[in-house]
């Protein structure tokens, strides 16, 4: 059984803005993990949202570390200054590794939001953003 792919989502105030399922083991996109586990992954990620909102006001750092653990999977979260949530479902990566990944994605996110045609809290459809997030995930998380 190959390594479990990581799942990364950006969640705005009302809806997910960006989703990516990234297979960090080979770089080749494979759907061998099956539909069911993917759906379960989404479920785990979104059910962690309540926990994120609960801890959001207790700390003033952006990186909230691991907020939820289900079986062997962990949910790490990063909140931007405008409380946009970056969430990553992974199987036990190092805290620093995940932090570096989030920092890189944050940089892309801020640059993306500087685009006058991108409206805050709307789904991200930029292909360039997608490419860079996937490259960052492979660079940091494999």
């Amino acid at each position, binding site marked *: 059984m190959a390594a479990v792919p990581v799942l990364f989502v950006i969640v705005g105030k009302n809806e997910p803005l960006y989703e990516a399922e990234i297979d960090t083991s080979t770089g080749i996109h494979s759907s061998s993990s099956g539909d069911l586990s993917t759906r379960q992954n989404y479920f785990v990620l979104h059910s962690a949202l309540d926990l994120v909102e609960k801890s959001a*006001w207790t700390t003033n*750092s952006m990186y909230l570390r691991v907020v939820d653990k289900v079986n062997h999977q962990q949910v790490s979260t990063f*909140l931007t*200054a405008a409380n946009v949530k970056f969430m990553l479902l992974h199987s036990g990566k190092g805290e620093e590794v995940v932090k570096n990944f989030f920092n890189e994605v*944050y940089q892309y996110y*801020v640059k993306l939001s*500087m*685009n006058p045609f991108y409206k805050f809290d709307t789904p991200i459809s930029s292909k360039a953003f997608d490419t860079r997030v996937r490259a960052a995930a492979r660079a940091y998380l494999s």
Partner: protein
Amino acid sequence: MSRNASNNILDRPLGFRATPAGRSSDVSSVSLSAFAYVYSELVQYHQGRAASISELERRLESAGYGVGLKVLECVAYRGKEMKRETRLMSILHFVSSSVWKSLFGKSADSLERSIDNQDEFMIVDYEPITSTFVSVPQDLGQLSADAYVSGIIAGVLDGAGFSARVTAHNVQVEEGENSRPPTNATPGMPRRTEKAVFLVKFSPEVLERDATLER
């Protein structure tokens, strides 16, 4: 046909601010005349489409609101500290110092708490750039051209989770109140007789949350 990869906004640097003191010719500053020209066009555009003074102000506010949301992320990122503002006073200081510096190249002149109302704060600026080159005609009465800035403030506060109603007011400067020499005075401009007061009124749930965090 294909665009050069380095043309993509995601590959360009985010224009980091140099040291706060010194270097006045900053990479991220815009020419004053260019700004004044674009801003006057913006005001005229909305003036032609607004039926009343309050509608014109509301239009300027909503034009600034989106800017505020983006400024928040950008300033927070450039701050390099990787922290969010979770407390009422710290977000107000963030607005009146960090945000103000990045937008206008200086801090706001003062930040005061209203004596009468616990939920009201005032950010005072003696030389708001948005009304420096605007003279309000008689028939527009109390119009404040700084409504755009109040929209930016509202955007920053709202984005950070502190929903607030922000309004801009022109207030007569009293004799001897502002003794400092003008900081970015344009030669030939008379001394300003009015200051801009941005009244920030937080919504009750924000104050409630801040009170619980106090404990």
